[in-house]
Structures are given as structure tokens and as C-alpha cells.
């Protein structure tokens, strides 16, 4: 069992949080919007907290919020706010300041994802997946020549 801290409780962050909790991990979620908590509860029989999850309201970049959310104990840090630059910055903070063993950043821009990947940061780029899938789907069209 790992302790996973997920920053950003949007569609991706909340879904990953729920799956990781269901898989038996300890999960803490940080988001500055209190309403984002609803994504963790919707369609669930028990509330996020009753199911064993943690939720902290606070800004991703703020040290106190990260500490309150448990970054010092985290085995895995997932940056999935809606800002690429925020994700890239807090991931490096998690790596270098808090020495979290595993850090993964969501980066929408493929170019930035590729560069930071080459710098030793683990990145997930949804845009790149979408492009690949589109290309695959459209490959049935064959070559235009």
C-alpha cells in the first residue's frame, strides 16, 4: 500500500484518486476549490472521507497546504491541476524540496512534456495520447497520394 498525494481534483485527479483508493492505497487530495470535493463523492454510496480518503483545501503552490495534505509522508505525488506550469513547478518542489520518491506531472502541452521528461521528470501528456489515437483511427483513410 502506498500513500498517494494528488494535487488538483478535476476530472482526471478525482477519477485517479477514486481508483487508487479502491485499489487499497492511502489517498490524499489537495485542491483550492472546496466544490471540487463533490467529484470524489458523486455516485458513491459512502462519502470520500468515510471511504478512507483525505481532502485538503489549499493552493497547490503553498508549502503549508502541501504539508497539511501530507506531502512529507507521500510515496507518490501526482500533479494534475489544470495548469501545466503549476504542475511542472510543484512536481519539482515535491522532488527537490520534499524528496517524494515518485513524482508524476500531467502536462497538456506535448513539447513541454517532452522537454521535462528529458530532464528527469515523469510526465503524462493526455494531448499526445489523443493525437496518437486520432491518427490511428484515421489511418483507415490510407495515404492521400
Amino acid at each position, binding site marked *: 500500500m502506498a500513500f498517494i498525494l494528488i494535487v488538483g481534483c478535476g476530472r482526471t485527479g478525482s477519477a485517479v484518486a477514486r481508483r487508487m483508493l479502491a485499489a487499497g492505497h492511502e489517498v490524499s487530495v489537495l485542491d483550492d476549490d472546496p466544490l471540487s470535493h463533490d467529484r470524489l463523492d458523486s455516485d458513491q454510496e459512502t462519502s470520500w472521507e468515510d471511504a478512507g480518503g483525505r481532502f485538503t483545501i489549499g493552493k497547490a*503552490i*503553498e*508549502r503549508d497546504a502541501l504539508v497539511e495534505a501530507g506531502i512529507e509522508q507521500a510515496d507518490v505525488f501526482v500533479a494534475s491541476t489544470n*495548469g*501545466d*506550469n*503549476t504542475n*511542472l*513547478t510543484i512536481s*519539482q*518542489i515535491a522532488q*527537490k*524540496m520534499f524528496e517524494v520518491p515518485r513524482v508524476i506531472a500531467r502536462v497538456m*502541452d506535448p*513539447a*513541454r512534456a517532452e*522537454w521535462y521528461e528529458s*530532464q528527469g521528470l515523469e510526465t503524462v501528456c493526455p494531448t499526445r495520447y489523443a493525437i496518437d489515437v486520432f491518427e490511428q483511427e484515421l489511418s483507415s483513410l490510407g495515404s492521400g497520394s
Partner: protein
Amino acid sequence: MYAIVVGGGKVGLNLTRELLDKGHEVTLIESRRDRYLKMEEELGHVVQYGDATELWVLERAGIQRAGLVVAVTGDDEDNILICQVARDKYLVESFIARVNNPRNRPYFDLLGIRPAVSATDLILRLIEHEVPEYGLVHLLDLPGESLEVIEIQVTEGAPAVGQKVSEIDLPEGSLVISVLRGGGGFVPKADTVIESGDEVLVCLDPGLEDQVTPQFATA
């Protein structure tokens, strides 16, 4: 020199004007369309529209040949990213970042984004300069050059009072560079005698502060 300024707020726009006046080649990158259009009327092709945290926007601006990148957007994460990419990917020699929220300064330090300038910090220093009870004020820190300038209010009974500058027991690597007395300032000579109520500016190697201060200010 070719400089790229990112962020066309008050700071970025005025900086661009100043650099142009001094004869430098400048590109200003602004991501808000309304601001961009307004500035384009004045600055023409000097302004480019785009998000400078996107690599192709920086490349379009010619970052490969830039000697200086100045990141002064209102977003600290953007400023960090721009400087990091400029330094590590495009090997730009000099960069300056703006710190909007002083609480984020440790992150700039952590990632080696220096110099990082915060208006709040600068104003705070001026306040400290105006309010003498702070005792000691950091006027200038140049960590890259291993140099600090501090200002100390000389208190009554301190070891330096009544002593010539040359006789004060200062560590190697520190020097009294200016004395402020009676509303004026002067560069002291070896035989200048320090008085209580003076303010002295001391240039020193970082880390010597604890040895220097007790000579001028009693706790």
C-alpha cells in the same frame, strides 16, 4: 544585446521601452490579446502575441540568439518555467525573474532561478531603511558574486564607537564603505572616527554578518 521580455504589464512594457531607448533589440511577448493589440499600436513588431511558456512561441521570438530573458508575468509558476527553459534548453546566458508572491521565493531559490526580483521585498527594504529600529538592513545581496552590502545603525556603547575605522575589529572580507551622519553620507578614511548614531554601510562576504554586526550594534 537581444532581450526577450515576457509579460506586457506595467513592468514589462516600461522595461521594454527603457531597453529600446538604450539601443537594445527587444521582443516583448504578451499572451492577452487585448493587451497585445494595444501595445502593438505603440511598439509595432517589437510585440509578439502568444504564451511564452510554449516552446514554439519562444523559438518564434528567436530565443536561440537572445542574451537576456526577463520573465515579468503576474504568475510565478510561469516566470519560473520561462527562466528554467531559457537557461536549460536554450542556454540563454542571463535571465531575471519577477516574484509576485514573496512566499514563493524559496521555490525560485530551490530551482536556481536567480536573480528573482520582488517588488514587495524591495519596498520592504526601503521601509527598513526608513525605519531605523530595525538595526540592520540588507541593501544588496549578490549571491553569484559572493557579495553583500548591509546597513547598520551604530548604537551607544558599541565597540566601534570612538574608534577609527582602521582600528575596528572587523573580519577579513569586510569593509566599511560609507558612513551616514547628520543627513549626509561620506566615504570614510582610515582615521574616520565612528560615532554613536551613525549609520554605516558595510560590504562583506556572505556569512560574515554575525561577526560584523556586534562591532557596531550592541544587542
